[in-house]
């Protein structure tokens, strides 16, 4: 039997960090939660998930530890969730800032491009959100999904294997959340 895919969760202090870890284990991945201050050379994983968290991207980015190092030096695919996506966009020259209308709890997203993350999923479904900031422009990314109040709900980098979602696929109330994480794990396998 082949080894399970090893996807580590980088903890940015989110309420749902532990849930990402739980869902990854449930879909058969080997997972563990690591501090966002872990040096990149100590990370022996096939892929990373950057968790969400309370830090505000525009003025609290030091709280995101070495996440920028991971984007520069980590070899495998990376999925950014919430502030994780925002950091990715910022790192690649995009713009982020406070949402005009923040979303908390229920929202409906529309899939613009299925790509890897939304493979086999409906064009519209309900997700769970919890964000004060959002991506305003994502240089070098294809936008994969949007909602009424947020134009970048999911994105994929044009060259690198950076994936990002503004909503929370790890939360049980999000429809198809587990499938989205499965789709990410499938990308890792083929990487």
């Amino acid at each position, binding site marked *: 039997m082949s080894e399970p895919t090893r996807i580590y969760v980088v903890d940015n202090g989110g309420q749902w*960090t*532990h849930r990402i870890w739980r869902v990854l284990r449930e879909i058969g991945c080997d997972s563990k939660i690591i501090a966002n201050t872990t040096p990149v050379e100590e990370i022996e994983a096939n892929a990373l998930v950057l968790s969400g968290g309370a830090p505000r991207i525009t003025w609290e980015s030091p709280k995101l530890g070495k996440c920028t190092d991971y984007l520069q030096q980590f070899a495998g695919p990376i999925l950014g969730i919430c502030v994780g996506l925002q950091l990715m966009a910022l790192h690649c020259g995009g713009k982020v800032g406070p949402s005009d209308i923040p979303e908390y709890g229920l929202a409906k997203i529309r899939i613009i491009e299925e790509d890897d993350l939304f493979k086999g999923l409906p064009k519209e479904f309900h997700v769970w959100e919890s964000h004060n900031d959002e991506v305003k422009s994502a240089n070098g990314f294809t936008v994969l999904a949007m909602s009424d109040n947020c134009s970048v709900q999911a994105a994929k980098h044009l060259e690198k294997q950076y994936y990002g979602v503004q909503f929370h696929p790890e939360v049980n109330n999000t429809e198809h959340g587990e499938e989205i994480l499965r789709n990410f794990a499938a990308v890792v396998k083929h990487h």
Partner: protein
Amino acid sequence: MFNAAKFIDETVTQLSERIKGVAIMGVSGGVDSTTAAILVNRAIGPNLRCVLVDTGYMRKNEVENNERMLKKLGLNITVVDATERFYDKLKGIVDPEQKRKIIGELFIRVFEEVARKENAKFFVQGTIAPDWIESGGGLRDRIKSHHNVGGLPGKIEFEIVEPLRDLYKDEVRIVGKELGLPEELYGRQPFPGPGLAVRILGEADPVSVKIVREACAIAEEEIERASANGEMSRPWQYFAVLLPCKTVGVHGDVRFYGNIIAVRSVESLDGMSAAYSKIPQAVLERISVRITNTLKDSVSRVVYDVTNKPPGTIEYE
């Protein structure tokens, strides 16, 4: 998938290696502490002494019923009536975080007194993942201080053991079922340690306790009856909250100025996110009529909470 049998084997082995001598344990009769108690009981048998604290903020008939049930499960249990101590310490306290901290500390002081008597060096509690996640620490913001984590005092006389620390409610239920607990127990809705004290917004005085206890009992009864007769499915958690503001009503052509009761009911898997329950109007109406009639001297109005988590939390404080 979560493997309950494996979890039970590993945990019982770890517990029997770790706990030397007598351990005392705080139990409430809820899913988490009862499941943890059964695990510890398997590991150290009669060296486990369970303590059920009557805080004065328990639901209707809860202390008696839970004591009976825990005894039936073969646990060694002592009930400590600390009602007056809790009421006394919470007198005049309105800030939710201060309330939770006072409750957390008083719980520990009561347990320490028992531990001294029993010469116990270990203290077991049924903490689960959301308790420490929401209590904050490091990067994580404090959403609320759960009484068994963020509400703990700095100095504690014993070593704390938390066998369910990494599990969520749904996983605890699977463990409880695997351990042979009755369905009414492992399927029980959550009831947090601070109890009715955090369902009374503002000062949790004995008069308010009586009101919210009755309102909670009515909301639970009506929802459970409607679920049993197929009108709806039983929600994940459902209760009543006493709001600290008054509204005008009319009783028999006479003006009445009374409090508001909010009814809260949610659907969830693990309590970390939740959607409000779409309860049938007829059920809501029965709850409203019964509460406003039964509690006619204090409640003038009943409202139903339609907030998800986030942005709301499940409990109000």
